[in-house]
């Protein structure tokens, strides 16, 4: 989750540091825009060496740190 927070700080353009956000805090309320969410996806793909499938490219997947963590977990498990 710390790795996700670091990438959020880099690409999410949030109005608060990601370290101040609870795992289930709503990232859109924290200022995540649709433009920044795509940059965030690309940052996560690069950092975790994964590719988000089309079915995961929706608002819910990137709505919180916990949701992102779950999505990355699912992709890594599916690949293993």
């Amino acid at each position: 989750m710390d790795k996700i927070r670091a990438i959020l700080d880099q690409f999410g353009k949030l109005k608060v540091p990601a370290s101040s956000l609870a795992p289930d805090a709503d990232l859109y309320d924290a200022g995540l825009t649709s433009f920044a969410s795509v940059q965030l996806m690309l940052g996560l793909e690069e950092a975790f060496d994964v590719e988000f499938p089309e079915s995961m490219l929706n608002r819910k997947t990137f709505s919180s740190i916990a949701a992102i963590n779950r999505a990355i977990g699912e992709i890594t498990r599916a690949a293993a």
Partner: protein
Amino acid sequence: MANAPARVAHLQTPRQRLESVIQIARAHASEVDCENRFPAETFEALKRARLLGVMIPAQYGGDSLSLADIVDMCGALGQACASSAMIFAMHQIKVSSLVTHGTESAWHIDFMKRVAAEQLLLGSATTEGGIGGDLRSSICAIERDGAIFRLVKEANVISYGRQSDAILITARSHSGAASSDQVMAVVLRDQYALEKTIDWDTLGMRGTCSEGFRFTCEAPAEQIFPHPFAEIAAQSMLAMAHLMWGGVWFGIAADAVARAQAYLRAEARKRPGEKPPGAIRLAETVGVLQEMKSVIVSGISAYERAKLRDEELSSVGFSVAMNNVKVTTSQAAADIVRDVLLINGIYGYRNDSPYSVARHMRDALSAAIMINNDRILGNTSNLLLVSKFDTSLVA
């Protein structure tokens, strides 16, 4: 028999009731355009025919019409008067926000009933000076004071603002909120004041009267939608807007094509046995009109499928598809009218000929800048960094 017309109105389908409105809209279209005025006759007729609440569920007094029905009405009205059709579309987009996101709050359900019963015309104040046309971003903020809220917005565009019975307005949810943390509220005419700041004197779509205002209001907080505007925009507003606008633009293009056909037929009658030179261009243009129709019809099916699943509705792939509906239909409308201008020649170029498409050209040119296509393409190009095109040919 004072209530006879109302009874007749209920016997006919909404689409049948629209026919008389279309005649009235067509009769006044040129005057509305020349005089730069609101198509009052069309909207009196729409209210008389009880067509402003048609999208509202029957249990709240509407006709439960589907998106496809509404888009078809936009297209039919667009063939007669593009300004009337665009106002009708913008009103229905606001109604769709109530229908989709207003059923969990008692106030919004009551308001929906009022829209149907009193045939209220709904306006929209989503753009703001200093934002640059991005409706997903606000500067102004809701100021709550117990059970009421206050708001001042420099709204540089409120279409038919002076004729609206209520306005749906966006703002940041509170003074400390991020620019994207927005809510939408319904504000009734007697709860707001409009101070005009910008006139509406444009190339086309002159009847929409999309003037700028300083909007000031005080209203009960329960009139704020319970769901964030981000959800309303993503789950209904953008898709509905692009499809209904597409319907209006299709109407403009379809009427231009009808005028080309009428012109060519008259020419062919004058010189039997000779094919007019523009005939081959008409064949090509009708192909583009058919493409445009396909894009709208398949876009409506995509919306109907997506609305069954929240994740699909908020998916990147669906956003790309709806963005493409807007860009392709807006370009096609202008391309088609320009081709008709070549077919009809001087008769198309004149304002006073039965084959004129001068107003059509001016109206159609608004399509590319109504949420500028370059902005939409910029947004789509960002989404395409992660999203792949759905290559399935099964609807």
